[in-house]
């Protein structure tokens, strides 16, 4: 290392080792490429096009109906995109050898996983929740939908975010635990779409499963957690919010923990 005296050396230690550089790279892969605007365009377009159909059809609407339509599309489809994006994030690097290359540098394994978790969480939140949400808010304001308050609307967007993070961390964890892309994509998709059948068989599960964060718990259109919060109405249960929050933390911890002794 002689000959490096003209440099300011990186001083990170412990779990933070390599984190700054990896984060910079992870964020750049979203924000310095076409990824961010492609995703933002798709989700802002899809969600708001459908919302516009409800708001401007000329047949009238009620608040719950408008918000519920918005919640269904904002809560059902983006998780599929998140699963597709995340399924290869760790497995791809393990199988291609880039993970081994990165971890031959002074990089902690915790930093490696965080650099997959945080930039992707920020990316999907901004492009699949925040941008479409802001446009949706503008549409609803123009259409005179009596939203409780911007803060309530923001809280609703937070719930959509949590819903996305559930699938993001689940898929990330499966990528750490397995080297099978099929497993990393099929299991989260199975969870995403299997919940409605589980709730049909065991109705009590609507009190915990993420499905009811954005999709109606029963046959009626309304009642999901996120649109209720946006409308300033108490949701039927806070259980899904608590359960999903715990899952996000547990999946993240398991990802970091299990990656520590992975052989690359």
């Amino acid at each position, binding site marked *: 290392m002689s000959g490096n005296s003209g440099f300011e050396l990186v001083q990170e230690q412990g779990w933070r080792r*390599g984190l700054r550089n990896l984060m910079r790279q992870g964020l750049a892969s979203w924000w310095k490429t076409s990824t961010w605007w492609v995703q933002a365009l798709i989700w802002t377009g899809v969600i708001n096009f459908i919302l516009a159909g409800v708001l401007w059809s000329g047949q009238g609407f009620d608040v719950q109906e408008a918000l519920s339509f918005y919640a269904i599309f904002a809560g059902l489809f983006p998780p599929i995109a998140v699963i597709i994006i995340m399924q290869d994030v760790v497995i791809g690097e393990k199988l291609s050898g880039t993970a081994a290359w990165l971890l031959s540098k002074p990089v902690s394994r915790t930093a490696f996983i965080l650099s997959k978790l945080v930039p992707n969480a920020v990316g999907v939140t901004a492009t699949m929740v925040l941008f479409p949400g802001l446009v949706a808010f503008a549409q609803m304001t123009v259409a005179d939908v009596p939203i409780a308050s911007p803060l309530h609307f923001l809280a609703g967007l937070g719930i959509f975010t949590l819903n996305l993070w559930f699938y993001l961390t689940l898929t990330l964890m499966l990528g750490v635990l397995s080297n099978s892309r099929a497993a990393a994509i099929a299991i989260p998709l199975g969870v995403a779409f299997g919940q409605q059948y589980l709730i049909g068989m065991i109705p009590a599960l609507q009190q915990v499963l993420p499905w009811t964060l954005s999709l109606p718990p029963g046959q009626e259109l309304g009642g999901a957690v996120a649109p209720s919060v946006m409308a300033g109405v108490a949701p039927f249960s806070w259980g899904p919010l608590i359960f999903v929050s715990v899952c996000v933390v547990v999946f993240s911890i398991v990802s970091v923990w299990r990656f520590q002794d992975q052989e690359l």
Partner: protein
Amino acid sequence: MNAIPIIQTHELSKTYDGVEALKPLDLTVTANSIFGFLGPNGAGKTTTMKLLLGLIRPTHGSATIFGMDSVRQSPDIRARIGYLPQDPRFYEHHTVWETLDFTAHFFFKGPAEAIKRRIEEMLDLVGLEGKADRKVRMLSGGERQRLGIAQAQVNYPDLLILDEPAASLDPLGRRDVLEVLHRLRKHTTVFYSTHILDDVQKVSDTVAILNHGALAAYGPIETLLAGSGGVIYTVTLKGASEPARARIATCPWVKDLQTSERDGLAHWTVAVSDEITAEQQLLRLILEDAGVTVTGFGRKRYDLEEVFTNIVEGGAHVR
């Protein structure tokens, strides 16, 4: 030569599902040496390198690098290492420059100008200066290999671990890599694996040969090339050599004497049990016979390929 140990392994071993990929390995690599690590495919070379880098964990035993434990202090060790994987893979969407810049930032925060100069130096070192803006996915195998060497060297490491550094290169590329290794020797210890025995013979000072996960030979290259079957002399003679042959064969320190005729010359291979006596007397005894002329005389030297083949195919052990 400086004999400070850089790498030391103590019964380092690795087992996968009951199969011993690496049997207990004791090895020392000293500072500023170019250590050639040889063996057929599946011999355990890459496993050893990955163990040293902390990419996999040993089943038994331990390794120290710069005096630090390869498992517990792996990030500190990796801060002083440059590594070239066997099949180097980088982010395909990065350019050559971005790959080196990304790598450099694991070690250096700045200044930006110094990092820029270092990257330019590395590009120049491996002959990629005209391809800095090319995407990694557009590189040929050889160019990718050169980029691998550049990124391994970007922090001026104290130890370079190179897994088959010349594998994808054409003869000129190989020559350049060998020159780079030779130049780096002043500042760096090089631990590298290869299948190209000629390269090892050209640049290495110490060699280890792994076979079926076990260390089959290990030592200074000169020792290895001198062979393990005792001391052998080769003699080429012109004229009537039979009387001399009969006289030499009866010497008590001659273990074996093989002769062959080629192009009117007699070729002897003389295995001796007493190296000093043979050195003093063998040539003198042959020349006692006036009817014979010695046109060639010397101690037999193996080439590395011969040593390697003997070990890998014959199970011989040289140490």
